[in-house]
């Protein structure tokens, strides 16, 4: 069981994680509302059915009470007749000289609506007097009748019999009438002496039937009357029961105490109310089948069900609307953030409608996105600044020795009277620095870069006393192209200091610039001592320790790093070298036209 609940809780938690906030709110609220409504409904049904049952019980008891009063009144009347007959007629008559007939006839005539007969028997069962019929049937044996024996056995009591067919008197009309006999012991006076006798008052059963008939209990209930031993006295379907077409639970009812109870009879539940009739021990039984109770309460119950369902519908509708009111702005926010995640630009985080918290959340996200954008702009700017600074640092790595040596050479040539060469060197130096500065631009025309290289080489050729020659060529197609500043000179510097170290007037350095598709290729080649390929490859290795070199001080690796920093990993340097053969360094850059160069400058900033 615990395992089942554990699994169920786990599954519920899994579903919960998959559900949207709207579904969670809507379903949980609706579930709670429906459960509440069902609980209320069940409570109402329970209360209603209890109240209906109590109402029916109350109604039945009232009716039974009323019928009991009527029966009591009827029986009291019979008892008064019996009392009158005994105390006013029998006790005042001496049978030796008088007769009971006059008083008896008078009494019968006064009460003939309720009476079948009045009769007085002596202690042996012989008829003393009777009205209205006075001849006993030959077969009649009063002394053997139950009513006679009861009267003789319990002299002080009045005795009511169960209903039976009167069989005492000869009736010329052959009428057989159902009666209830009221018998009592009486003392007859005959010649001054008293003797035992029995007074019999036969009440017409129709009188009792009339009291009980037409009594309607609520919800189709009915009433029946039984004797103390359970024998039916009156039942609205007495004949059907006698004929065996219907059954009644009268024997069980005889054992019930007064009050209301539920019983199951022939598969149906019924509310049974019992009330004992005074003097007789008879019992009035009111029966209301539970099915009828249910039928009568069907309409109000259906109306109650309607109200509950309508409440559930209304609650569900409200829950769905409220959950949508809460979750829709959140969903829109989520959508906007997803777009942001996907890198979409200009995503507008709208000011959400909805409740306070969601609006606050929306506002916070808007602020956060705004802050994020500013931060990103700052980071980009910082990156740009960093790159620019780095470039500037790299560009600024000009070995002061180059300037010192060059100026020293100028002094030396001037002192030696080689004014033309001094002038040329100074002129090239000036030109070299002007291009190196280039008003702070990092991207300059290719021709300026090549001119810069040319001036550098002019200076170096003079310094190295023409031990090598230089040729710089820009092939057709490279006109108007732009390049990074100061990328050729460091390569030339390496060629001069490493390649031409052993040259003796036969050194040769060439610079060739050409266009290959979208790329600009600049080859710097010398016929110097060259190097082993693995040494050439290691020159560009980032892990190789930094080594200061003679010359300008801007290393080959710096050029390679600058190009890749500016244009990406697809560009940079490639070194081809063989010992005693020479070295060729190839620079590959994108072929920047004027517009691309301008864009590049904007990105780099002022």
């Amino acid at each position, binding site marked *: 069981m615990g395992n089942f609940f554990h699994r169920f809780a786990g599954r519920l938690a899994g579903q919960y994680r998959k559900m949207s906030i709207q579904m969670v709110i*809507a379903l949980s609220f609706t579930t709670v509302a429906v459960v509440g409504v069902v609980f209320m409904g069940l409570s109402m049904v329970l209360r209603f059915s209890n109240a209906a049952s109590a109402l029916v019980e109350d109604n039945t008891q009232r009716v039974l009470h009323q019928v009991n009063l009527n029966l009591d009144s009827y029986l009291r009347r019979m008892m008064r007749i019996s009392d009158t007959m005994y105390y006013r007629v029998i006790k005042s008559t001496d049978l030796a000289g008088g007769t009971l007939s006059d008083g008896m006839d008078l009494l019968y005539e006064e009460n003939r609506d309720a009476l079948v007969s009045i009769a007085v028997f002596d202690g042996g069962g012989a008829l003393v007097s009777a009205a209205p019929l006075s001849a006993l049937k030959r077969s009649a044996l009063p002394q053997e009748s139950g009513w006679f024996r009861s009267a003789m056995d319990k002299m002080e009591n009045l005795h009511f019999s169960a209903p039976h*067919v009167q069989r005492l008197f000869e009736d010329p009309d*052959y009428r*057989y009438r159902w009666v209830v006999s009221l018998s009592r012991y009486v003392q007859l006076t005959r010649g001054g002496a008293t003797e035992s006798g029995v007074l019999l008052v036969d009440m017409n059963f129709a009188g009792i039937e*009339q009291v009980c008939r037409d009594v309607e209990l609520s919800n189709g209930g009915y009433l029946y009357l039984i004797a103390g031993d359970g024998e039916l006295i009156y039942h609205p379907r007495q*004949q*059907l029961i006698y004929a065996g077409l219907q059954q009644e639970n009268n024997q069980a009812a005889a054992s019930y105490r007064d009050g209301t109870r539920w019983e199951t009879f022939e598969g149906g539940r019924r509310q049974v109310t019992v009330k004992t009739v005074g003097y007789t021990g008879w019992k009035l039984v009111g029966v209301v089948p539970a099915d009828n109770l249910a039928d009568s309460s069907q309409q109000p119950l*259906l109306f109650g*069900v309607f109200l509950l369902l309508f409440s559930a519908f209304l609650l569900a509708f409200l829950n769905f609307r409220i959950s949508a009111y809460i979750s829709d702005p959140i969903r829109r926010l989520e959508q906007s953030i997803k777009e942001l995640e996907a890198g979409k630009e200009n995503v507008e985080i709208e000011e959400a409608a909805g409740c306070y918290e969601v609006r606050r959340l929306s506002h916070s996200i808007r602020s956060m996105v705004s802050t994020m954008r500013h931060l990103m702009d700052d980071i980009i700017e910082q990156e740009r600044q960093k790159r620019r600074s780095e470039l500037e640092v790299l560009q600024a790595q000009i070995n002061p020795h180059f300037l010192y040596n060059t100026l020293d050479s100028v002094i030396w040539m001037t002192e030696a009277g080689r004014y033309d060469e001094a002038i040329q060197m100074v002129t090239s130096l000036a030109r070299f620095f002007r291009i190196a500065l280039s008003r702070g631009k990092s991207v300059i025309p290719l021709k300026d870069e090549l001119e810069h290289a040319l001036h550098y080489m002019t200076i170096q050729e003079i310094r190295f006393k023409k031990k090598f020659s230089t040729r710089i060529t820009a092939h057709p197609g490279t006109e108007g192209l732009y390049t990074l500043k100061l990328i050729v000179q460091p390569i030339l510097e390496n060629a001069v200091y490493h390649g031409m170290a052993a040259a003796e007037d036969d050194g040769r350095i060439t610079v060739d610039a050409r266009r290959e598709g979208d790329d600009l290729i600049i080859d710097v080649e010398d016929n110097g001592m060259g190097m082993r390929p693995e040494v050439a490859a290691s020159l560009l290795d980032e892990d190789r320790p930094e080594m200061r070199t003679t010359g300008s001080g801007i290393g080959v690796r710096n050029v390679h790093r600058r190009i890749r920093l500016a244009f990406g990993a697809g560009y940079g340097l490639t070194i081809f070298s063989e010992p005693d053969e020479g070295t060729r360094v190839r620079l590959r850059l994108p072929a920047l036209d004027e517009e691309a160069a301008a864009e590049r400058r904007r990105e780099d900033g002022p």
Partner: protein
Amino acid sequence: MRKRRNDFIQLSILVVLGTAVVLSLVLPQLPGRSREVQLLEVSVIFRETDAALWSNTRLGMEQAAGDLGAELRFLTLTRAGDGGEQAEILRREAAGGANALVVVPADPWELSSRLGETAGGCPVVSIESPMEGTGLTVAPDNEALGRKLAETVLEEWTGGMVLLLDTAGESTGVAARLDGAEAVLTAAGVPVLRQTAAPGRLAAGLRVLASVRAAAAIMAFEPYATEQAIRAVEDGGLHQLVYGVGAGTYVVGALERGSAAAVAAWSDYAAGYLAAEGAIRLARREEYTAEPLPFTIVRGEDIYDPDNQKLLFPVTS
């Protein structure tokens, strides 16, 4: 996608709840639920000119009609036992819109042969005599009743012929009773005389009975004939004991007086109730069957037994 699924789920819940709301509102107003049970018309046709003998049967029928929602119309013949007239009344009632017919057939053979044309598809319930073409017969086991009554005769028979009054034609349930009784008596070696007579003439036809003064007992097999036989015996000062059928007041009085020795009695009230109930249910196209009515042989000295009181003296007001 998810939102669309959520919307669909919510809409489904609202539609289900809304439908339930509408149903709970409309259901009590549906015509089928509030329709009153249709009141049926059932015609009851006796074979006598007077239905007084069937008073308890009528009470039972009225109770059933009240319970099940029907109106009853009781019809008698202008001439007792006229099968032709009865068939004509049957036809007229069926044509007049009766939903079901209950008949105590005067001539079951004739009536059953004409049932197709007379009833016209209207369900017919027969009392006392089985009849082909009817939906139900409400009667005791007639032959067993005859045999049982004959056995009662045998218990007191000391010799002499027993007169069997054949008053209802050969093909009725009454004839079956008679046949059963005759078979038992004959088997016991009791001489029997089967005398055909019209029930209406029995009271006056003392000559019929005078011719059989030598008879030890008279047996009648239907209530009217039993009453008439008792009257004939009492009025004619005859000594024969009558064994009959039925529980009319006069017959019970005769039992008490000793003019009638014993009668086979059953609850006419139950017979009437079952017949009317069967007719109503068959008219409503419901299945309905009835067991043979239980009967009791009541002797004169037993009439005040509590059970017999209930049988012989119906509680009516």
